[in-house]
């Protein structure tokens, strides 16, 4: 009997050992796999267990958090949802995050290692730092001016500070309220479906993610290429370009919407926005030279992030000369985001130096202690300073005497370029009205801001003037708001 009892005790000990070994397996060795299982809601519960950090514009948070009382406790709120949606994006419990909410998610959710002060201790007591703050570069007055300028029309506005690359305004219209997507449940599903199915695509970020044919505003790039390459040495020397101009190796004749483009100087051609002259200059610079010039401004760059990823603007690198001619006037396959064209204007205003744009000034922890500055890329020379000076001169004339008069601001030097881009099969879509501009202090010559405006459904004739008509006043309002 003693033996039997001992064996039974040993058997119990064996069972105990099996339980302990299995516990170590589940709780230590396989724990990571279980915790990482997408069906395990603990990750989500922990993520929403505390208020999300704030996105700050002009010193004031534009986001907040609401205690939903549910299992996923805190939901995102937005003070001016539609106004700032193009920069904040949404933070949804059901559909993930976008834009700044996505690229700065670690800071906002409090999961970023940089927020942890005492890693070992915090890990031991399971403390999670509160979400940090993301301070943006946006100027609220300019943002509002841009938003109200577009007034719900389809389009986008981007303003940057030329010297620093700070993004001052970033508007896409029509917009949406990201707060509708914050939580989970039926209302969120419904809002998601409605916003995605809406004909005017409010969730499309037209400033960063949509490329448009730039049309005549691309002539700034073509002019820079022509001047930089030495093809044009004197702004006032008449150029040998007929009107109409026959595209190379074809019988297609390219005309101009305005009179007076035959054998004009570059200065006149720029003011009148002569298609013939710039098509010819593009062919003269050559495919390689044009592509290189465009790429220096940022075309064909797939890696641009502000820190939200920006759709690459395109300029073809393998083309027939006739296609090159059309590309040089911003047609054919040339396409640019509003942000890209704001960068072109900024480079001109900043004497040929381009500072890649950025949206995050700095990130701090919840108490305002700085964690990091926003990611920045170095300034680069994209054209000769002399070329930039000539372009500034020509762009200022467009505002003083040409199609850009609507953008003039008293007491400041404003330069601009209008554009109307045709699109669609046989160009029958409503043309896009473009306007790019910059404003400079008259005394110090310091460039104050550079703006790009696109209005998609401009109620306009197919003339260059429409760029000035629809988009010009918006650009002016945005720049003026930054001067106050």
């Amino acid at each position, binding site marked *: 009997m003693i033996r039997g009892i001992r064996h039974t005790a040993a058997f119990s000990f064996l069972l105990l050992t099996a339980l302990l070994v299995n516990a170590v397996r589940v709780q230590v060795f396989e724990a990571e796999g*279980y915790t990482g299982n997408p069906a395990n809601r603990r990750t989500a519960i922990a993520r929403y267990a505390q208020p999300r950090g704030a996105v700050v514009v002009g010193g004031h948070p534009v986001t907040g958090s609401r205690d939903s009382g549910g299992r996923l406790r805190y939901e995102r709120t937005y003070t001016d949802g539609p106004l700032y949606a193009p920069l904040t994006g949404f933070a949804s419990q059901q559909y993930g995050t976008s834009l700044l909410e996505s690229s700065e998610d670690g800071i906002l959710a409090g999961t970023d290692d940089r927020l942890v002060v005492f890693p070992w201790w915090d890990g031991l007591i399971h403390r999670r730092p509160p979400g940090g703050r993301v301070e943006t570069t946006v100027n609220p007055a300019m943002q509002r001016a841009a938003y109200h300028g577009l007034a719900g029309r389809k389009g986008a506005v981007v303003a940057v500070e030329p010297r620093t690359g700070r993004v001052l305004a970033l508007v896409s219209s029509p917009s949406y309220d990201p707060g509708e997507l914050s939580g989970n449940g039926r209302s969120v599903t419904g809002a998601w479906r409605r916003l995605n199915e809406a004909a005017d695509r409010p969730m499309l970020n037209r400033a960063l993610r949509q490329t448009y044919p730039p049309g005549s505003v691309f002539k700034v790039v073509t002019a820079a290429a022509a001047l930089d390459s030495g093809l044009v040495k004197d702004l006032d020397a008449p150029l040998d370009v007929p009107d109409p101009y026959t595209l190379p190796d074809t019988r297609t004749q390219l005309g101009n919407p305005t009179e007076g483009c035959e054998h004009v100087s570059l200065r006149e051609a720029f003011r009148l926005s002569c298609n013939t002259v710039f098509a010819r200059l593009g062919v003269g610079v050559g495919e390689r030279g044009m592509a290189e010039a465009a790429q220096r401004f940022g075309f064909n760059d797939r890696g641009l992030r502000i820190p939200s990823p920006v759709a690459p603007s395109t300029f073809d690198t393998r083309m027939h000369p006739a296609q090159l001619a059309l590309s040089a006037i911003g047609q054919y396959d040339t396409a640019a985001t509003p942000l890209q064209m704001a960068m072109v204007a900024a480079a001109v205003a900043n004497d040929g130096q381009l500072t890649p744009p950025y949206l995050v000034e700095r990130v701090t922890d919840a108490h305002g202690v700085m964690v990091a500055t926003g990611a920045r890329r170095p300034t680069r020379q994209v054209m000769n300073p002399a070329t930039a000076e000539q372009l500034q001169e020509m762009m200022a004339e467009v505002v003083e005497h040409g199609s850009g008069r609507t953008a003039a601001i008293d007491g400041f030097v404003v330069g601009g370029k209008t554009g109307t881009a045709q699109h669609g099969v046989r160009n029958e879509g409503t043309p896009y009205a473009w306007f790019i501009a910059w404003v400079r202090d008259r005394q110090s010559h310091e460039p104050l801001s550079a703006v790009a405006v696109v209005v998609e459904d401009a109620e306009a004739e197919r003339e260059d003037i429409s760029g000035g008509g629809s988009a010009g006043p918006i650009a002016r309002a945005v720049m003026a708001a930054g001067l106050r």
Partner: protein
Amino acid sequence: MGDMGEMQRFACYVAGMDVADRPDAAEARAQAAGNGRAAGAPPAPPRPKRRGVELALLVGAVLISFCGYLAVGLARTHAVPAGALRYAAGLGGLALLAHLVVRFGAPYADPLLLPTGVLLNGLGLVLIFRLDLETPADHAAPAQLVWSTVGVALFIAVVAALRDHRVLQRYAYGCAGLALALMVAPILFPAVNGARIWIRAAGFSLQPGEFAKVLITVFFAAYLAANREALADTGKAVWRLRLPAAQVLGPVVAIWLVSVGVLVLERDLGTSLLFFGVFVVLLYVATGRTGWIAVGVLLAAAGAAAVGTLEPHVHGRVQDWLHPFAGIAAGRGPGQLAQSLFAFAAGGTFGTGLGLGHSSLIGFARKSDFILATLGEELGLAGLSALFLLYALLAACGYRAALGLRDPFGSLLAVGLAVLPALQVFVIAGGVMGLIPLTGMAMPFLAQGGSSVVTNWIIVALLVRITDRARGPRPDAPARQARAAPDALGAVR
């Protein structure tokens, strides 16, 4: 209590190095050799009673439970929970009463039994109180506290009324009859969640199968103690097994079959597995024949295979065990077992802290069958190991008493009462942690369920009584024991 000498002796005791232990073990071996009739051995000197150690451990057990209660409140509401002091006073009062009864009624009882029971019960109350916070509509802790009180009251009653465990031997068949009646009773009541194991009346629900466990164990122990020579040494020899005569084995097999049959009809496979396990273990201990283990394992395997393929409910459990994440892959979301594994994994080594886990995601049965997941998540591997060791301690007390006793009935009963919770813990803990297929069963003392708590207190009470006998002075034990056994079951021989 509290002086250094006492504590040192306690440390030695826990480490198993008690000097007083050695002569007794030798004595026990002598007893085994002499087939329980070593009348000539001089009586061992009485061992220290260690009631002071028990009281100190009880204070510790109540304090730990109280701290757990506070921790839940502080973690969840940043405030001391309203009834904290009342809770501590209640648990402490119960523990003190039980201690006094043991001090005067069973002064030589193993000092680890009562504190272990109080600590397990206290932890169970903390966990249920904690899970109540997740289910505002369904508060189980108050009822569990009432049942714990009933359990302690029965503990006191058993310790006070049952002066000698050998008395039970006389009522072996009475126990068997009562157990069968208790098991049959729920068939008359409506099924709950597919199993007919509850009696519901006047807002209370009882699970009579829980009580039947103890009664059946008493019967097995008594019957096997009376007939073990016949079982071991008579009958035809087949391989390593000596098949006893039908009239010897008949009654016990019949009662076992009836009980298992009733349980299968009621869909309570966990309990029937438990009965089977206890039966096989006791048969082996009584006869010393390893062949019984082989037979038992073969029967268990055959039964498991049959039930696993024929019974869709059980088949599903086996599939869940093999593929706990099949539901996720099929788009139905994680099942209970997957949620349970997630909970254990979330606990890691040190746990999230009481009140800070999310084991309520398990859903149904989170307070009963799956309560271990809450402990695993919030106290981690550290807490879980400590809990398993507490159960091991409980079982060890039983085995220690079984080795120390001179009467076969007492030894068998002690082994049965030790194996019962040990098997139960293994089956349910292994089930919720993915070690074996899940079988619905209560975690002893921890899980929500009045019948289970009460039964466990009765088990502890019986162990207190038996250990008191095993550790206490035995002036004329051999003589009385020799008379006691044939009295009860002599007729069977």
